[in-house]
């Protein structure tokens, strides 16, 4: 715990963070590409489901993107606490960098879910609890991005986003437990559940491999986006210095 606290304190220095990110990025990108190649191969070779047929292959994209959409908001919630409570210098950088990535994965979850729903349920969309709460998460992401883009003062934007993120975090348990709390067309939990997974190993292994690949991709993209955000803040500082020198 003390080591983690020390690491977080060390990384609070943006220059140090940039050095760590620059060193880690090629390794992370390489690992992501390798795991993706393996996971895609396993996904393509996975047998058809006895009920859903070949459309079960959509699950290998749908589940990891749903997981990342929620993980990303969870990370933004921790960052929001970092902004409001600890005032960690990288907290709002993390929150700002993560939002478009989380939005993209949530959108992918909605698209793949819709494409999976049509052959299985006979409809692309239904206003049931799981789908609606996932759509709400996507709209929350868009709201966060809009606040970052419209509020001029970065520290005011960070505080507004932090509050919106904490309020929006209520949606995470709603998404997770919506299939238990309400009657929905969406299937119940089948991977992580009491009594073990209901999915056969031949489908579960590619699913885990794709989830690891997507998570590695997410970490790589997040580090890259955080690095860009730090550079953008430096550019802004230099523009301000240039303006004040000129006046």
């Amino acid at each position, binding site marked *: 715990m003390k080591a983690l606290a020390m690491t977080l304190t060390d990384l609070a220095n943006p220059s140090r963070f940039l050095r760590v990110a620059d060193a880690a990025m090629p390794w992370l990108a390489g690992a992501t590409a390798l795991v993706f190649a393996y996971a895609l191969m396993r996904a393509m070779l996975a047998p058809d489901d006895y009920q859903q047929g*070949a459309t079960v292959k959509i699950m290998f994209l749908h589940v990891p993107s749903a997981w990342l959409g929620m993980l990303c908001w969870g990370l933004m919630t921790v960052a929001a606490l970092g902004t409001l409570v600890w005032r960690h210098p990288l907290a709002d950088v993390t929150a700002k960098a993560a939002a478009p990535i989380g939005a993209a994965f949530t959108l*992918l979850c909605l698209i793949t879910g819709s494409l*999976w729903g049509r052959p299985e349920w006979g409809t692309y969309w239904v206003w049931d609890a799981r789908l609606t709460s996932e759509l709400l998460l996507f709209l929350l992401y868009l709201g966060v991005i809009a606040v970052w883009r419209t509020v001029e003062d970065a520290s005011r934007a960070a505080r507004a986003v932090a509050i919106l993120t904490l309020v929006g975090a209520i949606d995470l348990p709603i998404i997770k437990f919506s299939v238990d709390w309400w009657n929905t067309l969406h299937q119940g939990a089948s991977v992580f559940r009491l009594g073990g997974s209901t999915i056969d190993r031949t489908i579960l292994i590619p699913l885990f491999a794709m989830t690891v690949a997507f998570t590695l991709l997410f970490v790589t993209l997040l580090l890259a986006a955080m690095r860009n955000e730090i550079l953008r803040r430096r550019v802004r500082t230099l523009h301000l210095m240039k303006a004040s020198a000129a006046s």
Partner: protein
Amino acid sequence: MMPQPEHIDFIAAAYAAGAVVIAALIAWVTLDYRAQRRTLAKLEMQGISRRSASGRAETLTRAAKEDA
């Protein structure tokens, strides 16, 4: 000819959507990085550098003068 799996169009569309979203994210971070580096380099070429960097330079210059 091998028989096509049922609903292959939906599966292909889902994987195409995945490829587009991931490619867009990679393009976004790569192009943004290049743009920020380019702007930073341009500003530094105009002689504008961060206070910490110029402060460090001033300290080094002062130390060099003191040594001399």
